[in-house]
């Protein structure tokens, strides 16, 4: 059983603003019955002032989905459309006093329903539907969405992405792709300033660079998830490492190693091959 905050429990048992507004000015629908989560948001908007006068929701989903929807309607009522668009999934989660990390996707669903409603109000197509390529077929998640939640929520692992979007939580086929997207976003964020390699280097230099990349780039990411890494040896281009802590028997450890491999190749030398002990 999940540990929910009092606020989540309260809003689940006594949700605010349930139902559907008659003749709404905006409708946002997100999710599907197949995925197990769906939210329909209807808004009444004062067109002169662009202010949301009323918001109601209908949700199919678990306790945190219902509570997140209720929180969303509370957060946007009385705001102008532009102000409401500033509400993120983080705000929804905060309003609820937090959500279990595995349930963060419920708050993301709230944010998306709002965006869909605003797009509907403005006569635009919902951006999420327009662009992006479906990465996770099980849950219909696009690369755009994955990139966005990584950036907005500072995600660092594939598991985080699954918690926030559900992508990767079904058959798992898309996990390598999600890993690539994560690396790409993280790489761009880090600016890749760490090293300037790729010329002939001595063994000592190589080891020093590997250590530096591990310290600066890899270890913080792993530690954020309760894991760690130890550099065991460097034999020629073979980098032998050992995963520690939570990483040791994590089901994603294959991806973690792939991730480390890619980082070292990019930053130091294409020839490096990472092996876990």
């Amino acid at each position, binding site marked *: 059983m999940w540990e929910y905050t009092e606020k989540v429990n309260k809003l*689940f048992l006594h949700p605010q603003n349930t139902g559907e507004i008659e003749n709404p000015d905006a409708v946002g629908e997100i999710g599907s019955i*197949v995925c197990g989560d*769906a939210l329909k948001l209807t808004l009444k908007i004062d067109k002169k002032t662009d202010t949301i006068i009323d918001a109601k929701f*209908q949700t199919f*989903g*678990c306790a945190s989905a219902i509570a997140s929807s209720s929180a969303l309607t509370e957060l946007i009522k009385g705001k102008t459309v532009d102000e409401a668009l500033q509400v993120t999934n983080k705000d929804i989660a905060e309003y609820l006093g937090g959500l279990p990390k*595995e349930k963060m996707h419920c708050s993301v669903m709230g944010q998306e329903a709002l965006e869909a409603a605003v797009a509907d109000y403005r006569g635009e197509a919902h951006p999420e539907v327009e662009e992006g390529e479906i990465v996770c077929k099980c849950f219909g998640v696009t690369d755009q969405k994955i990139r966005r939640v990584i950036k907005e929520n500072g995600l660092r692992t594939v598991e985080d992405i699954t918690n926030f979007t559900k992508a990767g939580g*079904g058959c798992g086929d898309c996990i390598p792709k999600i890993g690539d997207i994560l690396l790409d976003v993280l790489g761009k964020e880090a600016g890749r300033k760490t090293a300037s390699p790729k010329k002939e280097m001595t063994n000592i230099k190589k080891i020093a660079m590997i250590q530096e990349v591990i310290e600066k780039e890899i270890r913080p990411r792993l530690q954020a998830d309760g894991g760690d890494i130890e550099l065991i040896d460097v034999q020629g281009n073979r980098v032998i490492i050992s995963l520690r802590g939570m990483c040791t028997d994590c089901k994603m450890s294959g991806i973690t190693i792939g991730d480390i491999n890619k980082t070292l190749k990019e930053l130091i030398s294409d020839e490096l091959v990472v092996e876990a002990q």
Partner: protein
Amino acid sequence: MKEVYLDNNATTRVADEAREAMLPYLTELYGNPSSMHLFGGQTHRRIEEARAEVAALINAEPEEIIFTSCGTESDNTAVMSALETSRKKHIITTRVEHPAVLNFCKTMARRGFNITIVPVDKLGRIDLRNLERSITENTAVVSIMYANNESGVIFPIKKICEIVKPKGVILHTDAVQAVGKIPVDVKNLPVDMMSISGHKIHAPKGIGALYVRKGVRFSPYIIGGHQERGRRSGTENVASIIAFGKACVLAKDNIDIENTKVKKLRDRLEDGLLSTCPDAMVNGDTESRLPNTANISFEYVEGEAILLRLNEYNICASSGSACASGSLEPSHVLRAMGVPFTAIHGSIRFSLSRYTTDEEIGLVLQKMPEIIRDLRSLSPFGRET
């Protein structure tokens, strides 16, 4: 508010008689059964009595019973032993097995063994022709559960024996859900190995048994001292073994009750829910099913939400919905049966025991329609009920 406990396929309350039986072994009678002194000797004797009690429940011989720590250990041991002794490389199991078998077999597959996972039909029944076709010269073991924990569907183990045994393949059955609920008689059922678990039949958690038919070659999984005649090393969980023995005696005495009183209550619950909640359906083969299990899908609502609303009345059940579990993937059993996602998300398993009362079922019948109605009224897919 006392709990209305309808999650007995997950675990059961410890029977008072079983608790009483084990208490002295947690207090004054703490001797090690392997010790040579009389003080240890008396615990050794009680273990042997408990072994006979466990054996009697399934009509086995005491020396065919090996005590283990749980059903999972029994399952892992059985499959591993078959692989070790047969020196063959192929495992057959089903898509709806408990993870103790399924994940173990998949792990073995990653270690170089071949694995065939036999599907089930939409009522959760195993496809026997498919099973027969899967058996090859190289098959070491067929591991098929006796009854499914989620749907309650009972597999035709006797027919499975007829298919598997003439081919000289080792047959293991995970019977943790069946034993104590329906009569199980290994003299009539030529399986080679059978797993049993204590906490599913009102003994404490942390004790199980593996039946190994006399003459079947066996290779221990846990290796160390000479306990259990070297078949399962490690100092015995004495108190729990004794409680387990007592629970088996009680289960044997009550087997008729399981199939009359418990079944009647289950049917009352099921019929009542189906008639008061529209768009509800039973998952699994109702012809061949455990007497205590009802797995019902309520369309357009989500299982975790139902469970949390049931919590308000202290009613405990479980769900095949992903949201109620740690993973995002809903019940592998219901998926294997091809239950539509719309129904899996709202599936609830009620599993009764001989301690379940009429009043308890009455309370569930009173509360559920309102819960379903409320949640549907919240849902964009809801219907007027």
